């Protein structure tokens, strides 16, 4: 997929330009997601490049709120794990962050989680 030239100028210009994330890599990851995935249209990785950006922003924002609650200015892996457990749409990530990890989801009740995120 072509990416040089026109686009590199736009990326440095900021958020109006496309593709903060490499499309070819996105496409590779898509292909690995299952045997079902055979053909991918040109626009699908582009939709994902924006969706991934928004996903990272949302998860980072929520993780940061957890860090602030703990009066810290450095974002750590546990903050991300806590934010994941506290957010319904991130349920699919719970297993990814809970393997051999210090965070125990049972330590936090849903009410406590909401308090953490609303502060």
């Amino acid at each position, binding site marked *: 997929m072509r990416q040089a030239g026109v686009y590199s100028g736009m990326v440095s210009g900021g958020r109006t330009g496309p593709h903060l994330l490499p499309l070819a890599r996105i496409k590779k990851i898509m292909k690995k997601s299952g045997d079902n995935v055979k053909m991918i249209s040109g626009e699908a990785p582009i939709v994902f490049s924006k969706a991934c950006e928004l996903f990272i*922003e949302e998860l980072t924002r929520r993780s940061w709120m957890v860090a602030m609650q703990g009066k810290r200015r450095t974002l750590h892996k546990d903050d991300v794990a806590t934010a994941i457990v506290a957010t319904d749409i991130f349920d699919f990530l719970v297993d990814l962050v809970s393997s051999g990890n210090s965070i125990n989801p049972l330590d936090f009740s849903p009410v406590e989680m909401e308090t953490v995120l609303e502060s």
Partner: protein
Amino acid sequence: MTVEKNMDDNVIGRAASSINDENFIKEQERLLPIANVGRIMKGILPSNAKISKDSKETMQECVSEFISFVTSEASDKCRKERRKTVNGDDVCWALETLGFDDFAGPIRRYLHRYREIEVDRANQDRVRNIVDDDQREA
């Protein structure tokens, strides 16, 4: 990759490290680059915030999982509808189905802008070709 029994340790060592390199590359290919991921994280945080390496690595893993999760949903839909190609609309549909409907608006604007850029670029190419032709005829 085959390693013959009577090769000396040096060669076996080099072969092993080459396999490790290959595995490392394969590992990296299933993740988005940490620099790009880190840049997006930094962009949303206050200037005094620090981001640990392990949180960036965790984020890399989460994004790949996100892509797989949404792609699976989109490709299931295509399979049920007997279509072979997962397109942008399928991805948008899957995002909404899985609870990421807040993403829909920004994505639509982004796609629109991308298509405008593509049209501009195609037009520039067309104009350039016309000018070339004129100069050749002169």
